[in-house]
């Protein structure tokens, strides 16, 4: 493949990491959702590019799914939920943004170190992609564990999952990618519905001891 292809793929993957950083940086829910939409969009673009590069047409499906479902439907739905549950005013970080960013840097560095130590036989495109994907996955986890409220954690999970799709798409000729992306979309749908149905506002991380007792059914 030509350098251009490589550079564009590289650029898009790197862009995804960048957007993940933006996610971490955000502490307003609305903004978080918008940026997640962006995240999904970038993913769609990079998957589409992979489809073009590997001329694997089925990947276009995944791209479309990412664009349509994750970049549009999910953010809108979450938007509604936030309004319904009235939790859009939350300041919901566990540790300060600065620290989280630092941790994120560390994670990206870790991802790079781990992946780039992989010997060069694996084709470079895949390697870069994997490195970025790993970074995105780790950042997604970081988002999940540093946010207090359900919605932002869902966003974290979804960004994590975007990283997976990125990796899957980057893996040349990997079968079942489409199926997997579909399966994940369903999973996410479940989660969102779950939040909506069970009114799980704070259930991820409540600080209300009585609630704990009630729900864990263990302590008296």
């Amino acid at each position: 493949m030509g350098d251009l292809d490589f550079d564009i793929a590289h650029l898009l993957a790197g862009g995804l990491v960048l957007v993940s950083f933006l996610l971490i940086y955000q502490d307003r829910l609305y903004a978080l959702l918008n940026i997640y939409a962006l995240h999904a969009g970038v993913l769609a673009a990079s998957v589409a590019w992979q489809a073009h590069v590997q001329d694997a047409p089925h990947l276009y499906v995944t791209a479309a799914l990412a664009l349509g479902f994750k970049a549009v439907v999910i953010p809108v739905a979450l938007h509604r939920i936030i309004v319904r549950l009235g939790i859009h005013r939350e300041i919901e970080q566990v540790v300060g943004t600065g620290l989280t960013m630092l941790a994120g840097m560390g994670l990206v560095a870790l991802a790079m170190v781990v992946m780039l130590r992989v010997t060069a036989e694996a084709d470079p495109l895949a390697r870069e992609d994997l490195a970025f994907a790993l970074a995105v996955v780790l950042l997604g986890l970081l988002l999940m564990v540093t946010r207090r409220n359900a919605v932002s954690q869902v966003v974290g999970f979804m960004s994590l999952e975007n990283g997976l799709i990125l990796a899957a798409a980057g893996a040349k000729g990997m079968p079942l990618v489409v199926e997997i992306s579909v399966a994940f979309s369903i999973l996410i749908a479940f989660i969102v519905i779950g939040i909506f149905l069970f009114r799980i506002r704070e259930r991820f991380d409540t600080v209300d001891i009585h609630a704990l007792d009630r729900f864990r059914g263990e302590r008296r």
Partner: protein
Amino acid sequence: MPVGVVLALVAGLFASAVVATCAARRPAAQSIVYGLSLVVTLVLTGLALSELVGVEAPASTLVLPVGLPWLGAHFRMDALAAFFLVVVNLGAALASVFALGYGRHESEPQRVLPFFPAFVGGMNLVILADDAFTFLLSWEVMSLASWALVVVRHRDAENTRAGFIYLMMASFGTLALLLAFGLLAGADGGYGFAAIREAVREPETTAIALALVILGTGSKAGLVPLHVWLPLAHPAAPSHVSALMSGVMTKVAVYGFVRIAFDLIGAPTWGAGLVVLTLGGVTAVLGVLYALMQHDLKRLLAYHTVENIGIIFIGLGLALAFQANGMAAGAALALTAALFHVLNHSLFKSLLFFGSGAVLTATGERDMERLGGLIHRMPLTAFAFLVGCFAISALPPLNGFVSEWLTFQAILLSPELPQWGLRIVVPAVGGLLALSAALAAACFIKAYGITFLGRPRGPAAAAAGEVDRFQIAAMFALVALCLGAGVVPGVVIDALAPVSEQLVGHALPAQSAVAWLSIAPIAESRSSYNGLLVFLFIAAAATLTALGVRRLASPGVRRGPAWDCGFPDASPATQYTASSFAQPIRRVFGTVVFQARDSVTMPPPGSMDAARFASIVRDPVWDGIYAPLAAAVGALATRMNHLQFLTIRRYLSLVFLLLVGLLTILALWP
């Protein structure tokens, strides 16, 4: 082949256990189950005896295709096994006889009947087992069955607690033994005893294995400081089971030690002897001191078991020490002494527990402070119990004395030992042994005097009556055995010859050769004892004097109120109680060992309420080892319990941290 027959009989025991499970609630089940076990164990005793005293037959073995798959279950019947089979089945048979009467008073027989035969069968299997897996399997079957018997009176929380502690200690012991066998079997897992015998290993391996074995068997036998479960568990069980546990099961533990230390490992070091010797000495004295502090009859007996285990282990330690220095004669003497005491203790401890069981059936009381004067209401039991007390106090002409005498003789051989450590420790242990013997006498004077003599301290004791014929029969059979083993000890020693021949390659000179049925372990000029003559002398002297005095003296006997220095007819409350009887000894020894404190609260002058006396005795071992351990586990559990109540985010961060950590490892990984 005998071992096959024996196994078949043991299978019969388990079968009767199954039968008992199905038909436990039937009224006839009692007599069926106990009758069956009586018959089976009697036959087993006979077989084992014939094996022991019979001609020098090679050890018969048998392999069944069960147990560890690629190994099978190996069984072996040799002299050692035969001797212990005698001990086990004799005790079990008499326990069955006793239970034929005692069981009638059982409130929930369905909790006892299935487990009694299983317990006996388990003990038999332990002795027959010839590979590590079968051994441990049977060992734990024995423990489990006895555990179930300990928790029969489960409505009393004390008993379930006792059962819990017992099971924990038992499992600890099993795991220790498991590790020991793992070490002995080696990497390629030769778990057969034959393979273990053949294997060659470094001395330190042997040392570690031996230490583990001491832990494992000691926790079952009740060596200090592993004894804590014993005085809780043994009394909790029904009395015939208590007799089995105290008199027989502890001996199975001794068997385990002998089998592994002498037979499997072999070639001991003198250090091992030193350790065992010291443990034995400490156990003996502490055990009897504990016993002296008790006022619960069965608990007193259980603590006293600890003392006797100590005496046995003194003998075993000496044997190890002698064998390590190639002094075969000494080793044989010490081992014979220990095994003799095994037999003796199984006899008189069963007798005493039967007696306590009889008291329990007659009065429903275990607390000596509420007993007294039973000698008038249950004379037969009183006589049997008296014999038991006399025997266990190691007084001639009964059997207890003989084994302790042999142990002393073994100690007197020990100056030939080259190692200084032993030379210093052995006489000290001898002193401890002498001390424990004297204290044992004190302990049983207390037990008998408070329980059977004096005047009743409670209504139950006043209303007691003699127990049924089965219980009496069991007790008197044991009385006869105690006397027999005491007056003709030579027979027992000769029967033990093949065992010591097998284990230390040497045996005591045949006692049947010595004139007048007396025994001379080394040489007649050096030391000899003749229980029969002593018995006859005492009997003759006593009767002759009695007759003579009758002729000379005035025959009249006038009954009157007790003189008591002019305070007649004081209330029974003025008698000495168990705690007051032990008070001087408590002051002399207890204050040091147990931080024993007596506190008396006197009512102010003029107030009518009673004065209160309380005697607090602490168990240093429990306070020092077990309580902190339990506390530590509890504290850790409480601390870790918070992990149950974390939020999902926190759990996720655990996952996250683990992931990052592993990735970092990979990043740094060469």
